[in-house]
């Protein structure tokens, strides 16, 4: 296999708070090839957004990346001076945020916000940058982009604003786009459109996409591969169909079981008992042990390693759902 576009190795991002060290991201590894779509799934507080921000070098104090490598085409971004990271941000790795109502600066016109994004990385005149901004708006399906460039964010609907944010992410033809729950704040019809557009654009341009979400149904139709995060760690990873159809980790099973579906109508929705453990005081063994239906004594002894139970599919569990094992 050729070199992955982006590889994250044993990434640890910790927050040094008064109450102690919060290990928001604690040893996350994954990689993504050109034009692939990776789903990063987990509950709130599982560290998936912080993983995204860590890749861009945008973790705010008291948090910082303490360990690991982030390899963009083989070049490690961790520990690089900020000016180097700035040149990468928005240029080679772009990000789309969750709430489109909040991501655009309310007092600046769309063209200002788009032109500055081009000019931050390319030494071009305002007219060239503007033309590029207009094309990007057209690509994400915004009607009459030339006029809309002169509008302010409040003159757009939520879905349109997210399209603008996506257009901004696409402006400099990045190699990787990190999308942090970009459809969560949108209504379902718009969600579908945005999903479709993003998928199409990434396939066209060969951009790799990391799609962060808590919504398995979104990822199911979108991603090639999936990583399931729990308490700052990846607990299961693999090709999307394998992970969804033949989950190894009880947590993944639990998540899937709690998605409402037609054939379970009428019966109470399955849920995972308990809540995510505090990241301040994680148990020494498997962090999921207290909520796990398959927990055994050895689960609490030590943190289980990632084990590849099937080709390409790995789980951090010593009693996974594998045929012939308890």
């Amino acid at each position: 296999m050729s070199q992955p576009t982006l590889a994250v190795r044993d990434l640890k991002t910790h927050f040094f708070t008064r109450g102690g060290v919060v290990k928001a991201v604690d040893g996350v590894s994954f990689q993504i090839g050109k034009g692939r779509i990776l789903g990063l799934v987990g509950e709130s507080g599982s560290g998936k957004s912080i993983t995204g921000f860590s890749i861009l070098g945008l973790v705010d104090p008291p948090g910082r990346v303490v360990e690991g490598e982030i390899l963009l085409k083989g070049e490690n971004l961790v520990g690089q001076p900020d000016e180097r990271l700035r040149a990468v941000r928005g240029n080679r790795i772009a990000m789309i945020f969750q709430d489109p109502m909040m991501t655009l600066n309310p007092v600046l016109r769309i063209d200002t916000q788009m032109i500055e994004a081009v000019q931050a990385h390319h030494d071009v005149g305002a007219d060239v940058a503007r033309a590029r901004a207009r094309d990007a708006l057209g690509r994400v399906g915004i009607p009459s982009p030339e006029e809309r460039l002169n509008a302010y964010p409040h003159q757009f609907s939520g879905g349109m604003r997210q399209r603008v944010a996506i257009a901004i992410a696409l402006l400099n033809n990045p190699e990787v786009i990190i999308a942090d729950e970009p459809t969560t704040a949108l209504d379902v019809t718009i969600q579908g459109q945005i999903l479709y557009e993003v998928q199409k654009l990434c396939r066209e341009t060969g951009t790799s996409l990391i799609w962060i979400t808590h919504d398995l149904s979104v990822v199911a139709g979108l991603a090639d591969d999936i990583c399931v995060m729990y308490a700052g760690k990846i607990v299961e990873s693999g090709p999307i169909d394998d992970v969804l159809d033949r989950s190894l980790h009880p947590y993944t099973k639990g998540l899937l079981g709690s998605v409402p579906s037609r054939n379970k109508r009428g019966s109470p929705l399955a849920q995972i008992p308990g809540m995510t453990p505090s990241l301040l005081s994680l148990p020494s063994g498997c962090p999921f042990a207290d909520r796990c239906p398959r927990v055994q004594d050895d689960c609490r002894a030590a943190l289980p390693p990632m084990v590849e139970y099937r080709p390409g599919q790995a789980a951090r569990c010593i009693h996974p759902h594998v045929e012939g094992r308890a």
Partner: protein
Amino acid sequence: MTVFIVRRLMQSVVILLVMSVIVFLGVFAIGNPVDILISPDADQMERERAIRALGLDLPLWEQYFVFLRNAAVGDLGRSFVFNEPALRLIFERMPATLELAFTAVVLSLVVGIPLGLYAGLKPQTATSKGIMAGSIVGFSLPSFWQGLMFIMVFAVMLGWLPSTGRGQVGSFLGIKSSLFTRDGLAHVILPAINLALGNAALIIRLTRAGVRETLLQDYVKFARAKGLTHRRVVGVHVLKNILIPLVTVVGLEIGGLIAFAVVTESIFAWPGMGKLIIDSINQLDRPVMVAYLMMIVFLFIVINLVVDVLYSVIDPRVRLQDVKG
């Protein structure tokens, strides 16, 4: 927007009317100027002639309507003391006060915004904590005490700057101001700093709070995610957003500085409107008091209008129209 401004000006007339009633009653309640103005030796005849000449023989409501009738044609009465039109007296003194207030506002902005930005961007550093502590001192110390200390230190002990009066007046582009001469500048520095200090402290705190709040917004993080330089994120994305509260407060403060420069002007013997109003109150010079207060009300109305218009320039979400109901 034109409709907004016209309607706003019409509302202003109502405000001015209401204020005139309040001012008139208030000034009437302070005391009877006859006791001060007419010498105690004067006989009854002389006394009555003087009272009639000043228009004080009429009942209050009649005095008020005389005032209104004259005010409608721009005459706010003649000073009892100087026997000059009250408005002319005020306009004579106004440039001195305006230049003092203007200098103070510029000073407080030039000092306040950078310090506030710094304290907001680097809240944990010792310098920031020093700035914030200083800002508390800045607006906690009574203005008159600050002024006296300035005079003592810079004028008496060090002898660097003059302590009283307005310096030489220069002329530039037809505008006469002491800001255009060295001597004038030397005179304006101390009173301007005295007047600016409390304001600068307020602006520092306001800017810092704004920066702290804005930095947490998603659009700032998004701007950083676009790869913008720190300078551009702060200078454009953050600054333009904190201008909104700043404009409000600075607008009100300008009015306050002009209206309440009284203390500073008294301490530094600055020949401005503040000193005039103090003298007028002491001598119960009713027309000057009334005219002054009406001027100040008018000033506040104008400033508020300017602030509202500026709003719509800074914040595209604000549209200037009347909210019904």
